[in-house]
C-alpha cells in the first residue's frame, strides 16, 4: 500500500475516527503546525499548554493509532497582533523549538500584513536561523499574492535559504513565483475553498512534481483529513505517473522537513513500540492460535 505524509494538519481538532481513517488510508506521518485555535488566546499560559500538547499528548494520541506525529513551533500571524502577549510567547518559544520532533518554525508569516505581524515574522526567522530549523510560511487568505511575495522578500532580506522554507497555501496565482525562487510550495486541499483536488492535479501536470507538497490543513473548520490520499488517488486516475504522485504526497515533505534532523523515515518504517500497552501492537508476541487480548485505548486512558 502507498504511504503518505500529511505535512500540515491540526490534529488537536480531529477525532479518533479521523485517526483510524487516516491510518487505514496509508498516512504514516503527520506534521502539526502551531496555529491559532479559531479564537484568540488571551494568556501566555494558553500558549504554553498548547505547545506542550503538541509535543506531548497529541503525539502520544497519534502513536496509539500507528501514526508518527511531528510539529512546528511558532507564533501565528493572527495572534502576533496582540503585541503584549506576542512578546511573552516569543520568550516561551526557545523552550520548545529544540524539542524532539519539532521539524520547523511555523506556521508564521502574514495575515493582515500589519506592522506587528512583520515584526514577529522577522524575529522568528532569526530564531529559525539560530536553531537551524526550516520555516513553514503561512500565506494570507486576503491579498494573497502580495502577501506571499512579501514573505519571500523578507525571508531573503534575513539571509534565509529558500531551500529551507516551505511556503504554504499556494494557488495557481502564486505557485510559479514560489517555485522559480527556489522555495518549496505547499498546497492545501480544502473541500470548498483554497485548492480542490482537481485543481491540484492540473498544477502537478503543469509544473511537475519538484518541490510541490500536498497537505490537508484539516482543523476545526470544514476540512478533510484524507485530502492527501484522496488527491493522490485522483492524480493516479488522471494519469500522473506514480513516481510523481509519491513525490508530492510523501517524498518531498520528508526531504524538506527532515532538514531539521528531527524527522526520519525509520521513525515509521522501524517504529519501536513506545510501550507495551499501545493499541497498535499488530506484531505482538502472541503465537499462532492464541486469541489476542488487546483492548482499545479507552480501557487504559481515563477520559
Amino acid at each position: 500500500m502507498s504511504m503518505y505524509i500529511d505535512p500540515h494538519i491540526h490534529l488537536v481538532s480531529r477525532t479518533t475516527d479521523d485517526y483510524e481513517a487516516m491510518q487505514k488510508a496509508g498516512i504514516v506521518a503527520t506534521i502539526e503546525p502551531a496555529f491559532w485555535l479559531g479564537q484568540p488566546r488571551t494568556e501566555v499560559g494558553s500558549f504554553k499548554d498548547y505547545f506542550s500538547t503538541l509535543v506531548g499528548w497529541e503525539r502520544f494520541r497519534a502513536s496509539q493509532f500507528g501514526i508518527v506525529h511531528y510539529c512546528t513551533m511558532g507564533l501565528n500571524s493572527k495572534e502576533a497582533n496582540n503585541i503584549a502577549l506576542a512578546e511573552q510567547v516569543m520568550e516561551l518559544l526557545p523552550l520548545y523549538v529544540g524539542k524532539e520532533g519539532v521539524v520547523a518554525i511555523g506556521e508564521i508569516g502574514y495575515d493582515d500584513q500589519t506592522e506587528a505581524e512583520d515584526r514577529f515574522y522577522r524575529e522568528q526567522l532569526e530564531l529559525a536561523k539560530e536553531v537551524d530549523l526550516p520555516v513553514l510560511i503561512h500565506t494570507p487568505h486576503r491579498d494573497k499574492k502580495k502577501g506571499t511575495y512579501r514573505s519571500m522578500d523578507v525571508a531573503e532580506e534575513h539571509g534565509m535559504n529558500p531551500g529551507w522554507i516551505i511556503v504554504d497555501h499556494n494557488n495557481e496565482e502564486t505557485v510559479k513565483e514560489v517555485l522559480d525562487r527556489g522555495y518549496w510550495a505547499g498546497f492545501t486541499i480544502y473541500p470548498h475553498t483554497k485548492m480542490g483536488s482537481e485543481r491540484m492535479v492540473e498544477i502537478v501536470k503543469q509544473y511537475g512534481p519538484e518541490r510541490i507538497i500536498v497537505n490537508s490543513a484539516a482543523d476545526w473548520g470544514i476540512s478533510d483529513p484524507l485530502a492527501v490520499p484522496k488527491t493522490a488517488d485522483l492524480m493516479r486516475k488522471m494519469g500522473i505517473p506514480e513516481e510523481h504522485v509519491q513525490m508530492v504526497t510523501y517524498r518531498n515533505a520528508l526531504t524538506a522537513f527532515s532538514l531539521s534532523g528531527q524527522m526520519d523515515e525509520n521513525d515509521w518504517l522501524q517504529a519501536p513500540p513506545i510501550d507495551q500497552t499501545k493499541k497498535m501492537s499488530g506484531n505482538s508476541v502472541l503465537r499462532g492460535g492464541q486469541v489476542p487480548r488487546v483492548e482499545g485505548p479507552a480501557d487504559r486512558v481515563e477520559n
Partner: protein
Amino acid sequence: MASTQDILEFLSGILSKNAEEKSLNWLSQKTEKIQSSGSPTAFFLAFSQASRFFSKEKLQLDEADKNKADELVSGYEPEFWNVLQTARTYLLLSYPQEKETWFSAVNQLFETADMHEHQALFAALPLMPFQEDLVDRAIDGCRTNVALIFDAIALNNPYPAKYFPEANWNQMVLKAVFMQRPLYRIQSQDSRSNPALAEIARDFAHERWAAGRNVMPELWRLVSPFLNEKYLEDLQKVMSSKDDLELAGGALALFNGSSGTGKTLLSEFPTLASQIESGEITWEKVGKEYQDTRV
C-alpha cells in the same frame, strides 16, 4: 543518599560506556555552560537537545554498576533507564542547586516537558535535591494518560514508596492495575500493602467480573496479606479458572497469606504449591508472562 557529586560521577561513568565520544564532548561542553551561565536558558536548550546526541537504547550495565547504583541511592535501578534520560539527568544534576532558582527552573522544565523529557524528570526524582518538596509534583504526574510517563514514576522507582501518603500510593497502584502495568516492578509493594488497598483491589476485580472480563493475576498480591472470608471467596473463584496464569496468581496469594482456610484451599492444588515452593512460580514470573502474552 550519596552526594550529587558522587551521583554525577557515577552517571558520567555509565554514559562513557554507553555513548559516543562526540556526544560526551557535547555533554561536557553544555555542562560547563550551564554551570557558568547565570540564566537557565542554556540548561533548557541542552535538556531538550540532548535527544540529538543520545539514543533511547537501554543502558548496558555490568553487575558492579547495578550494585553501585543501589549503594548510591537505595532502590535506584538504572538498568531500566535509557541513555538519553541518563544524559538528561546528568544535565539536571549539574544545574546549580540553590533552592529558589533551582525550583523555578525545574518547575518550568516539568511544565513544558515532552513525553521523553517527562520520563527523564520523573524517573530522576529519587536522585534530585529537595526531593521531599516534589511529592505533589510526582502525585500530579501519576494523573497522566501516557504509559511511558506513568511508568517512569511508578515502576522501578523508589520515590513513591518513600514519599507517597497512603491514599496516593493506593491510587497509583490501582491505576497501574487499570493500565495493566507490571505490578512486580513497583518497588516496596509488600511493605506498603494496606487493608484499604486490598479492599479497593477487590472492588476492582468484582467490577471486571461483572463486565465479563478477566482480572490481572498480580492483583491478588494486594489482597494476600489480608485474607479473610471475603477475599477467600474471591480466591476460590480464581482457583476455578481455566487460565494457568490466573491459577498461579491465586495460588501465590494463598501461599503467601496467613490464613489456615487459605492453606487448605491451596492443598487442593499440590502441583502449584510445590512449584511456588521451588521458586518456579513467583509474582515476578507471573507478571512477566502476563505482560508478554496477555497485554
